[in-house]
């Protein structure tokens, strides 16, 4: 609505800034998780993720020197780097926790028994002593250093390939897929028929059925959990994928029918009546005319259902059980939050693995999602 007369430019600026603040506030939490998932556990636990983007100056955890001993004349020497993998710059260092900044970079410190230690700015050290270091505990070095931003993919390889670290995230990912895809397709198939019948076929009790569907839209699924579980046990499905698919289908149907019916009712009456006059059967009309025309509505429901089944926790827990082998991503995450609440590198990475698929679907198909939302609520 930029065409409104009398808009002041200061106001426009205010709007821009307000939107920027809102957007930042909404993106910031997710960004935090994303950045964290690329940091090592040390980095995560010693500084906030927002600091990861800039060079950090601070005291690092103590590093115990190690390396191959070499004999030079009567000196036993160990040389090496404190930070072989990063571009850390040391500004001060020390060998005791009481005086961690005793020496500047490049200085040589006198240790006991005539030993000497030199630490250079780039973390290279040289330790010399009058006797062999064999069997002795080598000194620890405390450093105050500037560390440039550093990111790693190791969390992802760790979580996805190792069963212990990721606690089976890869497995859970496959479980989630197994739940989500059939749970999306089955209700669409069923609902398309039902919606067509409710929209274009006349039969007694039609409006009552529609009312029932609308009513069911808001019934909390918690109500149906136990009866449904009992039913599944009674007819022998028990806990398993079939049970989850059926449950998701059942809970997804009202919305599916409602969305599709609303859409199909809006299709031009002429086309359908012409087809009837031309002698098409109801089934032909449905397959050849209604389904292709309803594609947008089908797509929007498919996204809804996929996001919902992918993100669902309750139904998976109830109908699939809490065994390690059947746990879906959301269930796995809840367990991780309990058992590894402090290990943010694993938690953040796992969470991101679980989020990335729905996010991709979301950004790719946003148009249909919005359309579906609008069809469902604005009338």
């Amino acid at each position, binding site marked *: 609505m930029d065409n409104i007369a009398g808009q002041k430019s200061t106001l426009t600026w205010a709007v821009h800034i307000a939107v920027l603040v809102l*957007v930042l506030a909404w*993106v910031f939490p997710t960004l935090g998780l994303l950045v964290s998932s690329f940091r090592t556990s040390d980095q995560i636990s010693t500084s*906030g993720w927002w600091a990861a983007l800039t060079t950090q100056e601070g005291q690092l955890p103590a590093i115990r020197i190690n390396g191959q001993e070499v004999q030079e004349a009567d000196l036993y020497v160990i040389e090496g780097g404190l930070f072989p993998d990063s571009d850390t710059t040391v500004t001060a260092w020390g060998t005791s926790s009481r005086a961690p900044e005793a020496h500047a970079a490049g200085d040589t410190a006198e240790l006991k028994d005539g030993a000497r230690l030199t630490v250079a700015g780039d973390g290279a050290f040289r330790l010399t002593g009058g006797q062999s270091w064999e069997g002795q505990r080598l000194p620890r070095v405390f450093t105050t250093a500037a560390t440039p931003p550093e990111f790693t993919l190791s969390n992802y390889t760790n979580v996805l390939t190792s069963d212990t670290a990721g606690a089976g995230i890869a497995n859970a990912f496959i479980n989630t897929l197994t739940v989500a895809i059939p749970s999306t397709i089955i209700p669409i198939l069923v609902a398309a028929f039902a919606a067509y019948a409710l929209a274009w076929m006349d039969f007694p009790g039609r409006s009552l*059925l529609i009312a029932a569907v609308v009513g069911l839209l808001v019934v909390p699924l918690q109500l149906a959990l136990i*009866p449904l579980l009992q039913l599944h046990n009674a007819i022998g499905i028990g806990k398993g994928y079939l049970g989850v698919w059926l449950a998701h289908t059942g809970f997804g149907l009202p919305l599916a029918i409602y969305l599709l019916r609303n859409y199909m009712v809006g299709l031009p009456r002429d086309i359908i009546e012409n087809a009837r006059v031309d002698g098409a059967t109801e089934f032909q009309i449905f397959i050849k005319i209604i389904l292709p025309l309803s594609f947008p509505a089908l797509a929007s429901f498919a996204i809804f259902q996929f*996001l919902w089944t992918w993100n669902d926790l309750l139904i998976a827990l109830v109908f699939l059980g809490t065994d390690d082998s059947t746990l879906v991503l959301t269930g796995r995450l809840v367990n991780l939050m309990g058992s590894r609440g402090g290990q943010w590198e694993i938690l953040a990475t796992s969470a991101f693995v679980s989020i990335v698929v729905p996010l991709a679907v979301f950004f790719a198909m946003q148009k249909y*999602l919005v359309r579906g939302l609008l069809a469902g609520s604005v009338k």
Partner: protein
Amino acid sequence: MFATLWLSLTDRDQGGAFVGLANYRTMMADAKFWEAMRNNMLWLVVVPAMSTGFGLLAAQLTDRISWGNFAKSLIFMPMAISFVGASVIWKLIYDTRPEGTDQIGILNALWVNMGGEPQQWLTLIPWNNFLLMVVLIWIQTGFAMVILSAALRGIPEETIEAAIIDGASPLQIFFKIKVPQIMSTIVVVWTTITLVVLKIFDIVLAMTNGQWETQVLANYMYDKLFRAFDWGVGSASAMVIMLLVTPILVWNVRNARKEMR
């Protein structure tokens, strides 16, 4: 279609068939239940109000600028994130480190920066309840925004132009012209979010599991059903949720019928 009908019958009838009055009495005597009720009422007031409010604000603001659509899709994005994923995200924000070390949760970092002591936010009664609500507000605002912005666009231009000619200020236009015209949509958004709130379970389960007085009805029910295996009381609490939903259900069905005529 028959499957739906059939499912619909089982879900109501069998849910009902399970409940004896004794279960309700046990439930009423349980302090945790009342805590859950009280918290749920808080959720019901705060979350729909804040989400709708922020949604309306975001809708109104983004409609006016060139990169509005981009902004919208970023605000809308949390909708695609599961409640559990969102819980992880926010738990990082509320994270606490001991005093004297760098805080890795942004909330504590800000708090310490302002001179406070690091807090265990999620155990801080009663604020922890609101901190959990923030998560849901974060998720639901995008939904509210998308629908409200469509409604705002549907307002006939003439009414707004007339108001401008009459010398109304932007604020007046917004509250006196636009908001009344989209009132019915606001109600729809509000009730939809209310329904989500009534079912909210994952966030509480993942972040506090109802400890530190953050229990809500749906998690209470899950606790009873699948941890204590007390199906009687569990079902009774499910019925309470149903009872709370009923007015919305009736209202919805009525509206749908009106539309049909």
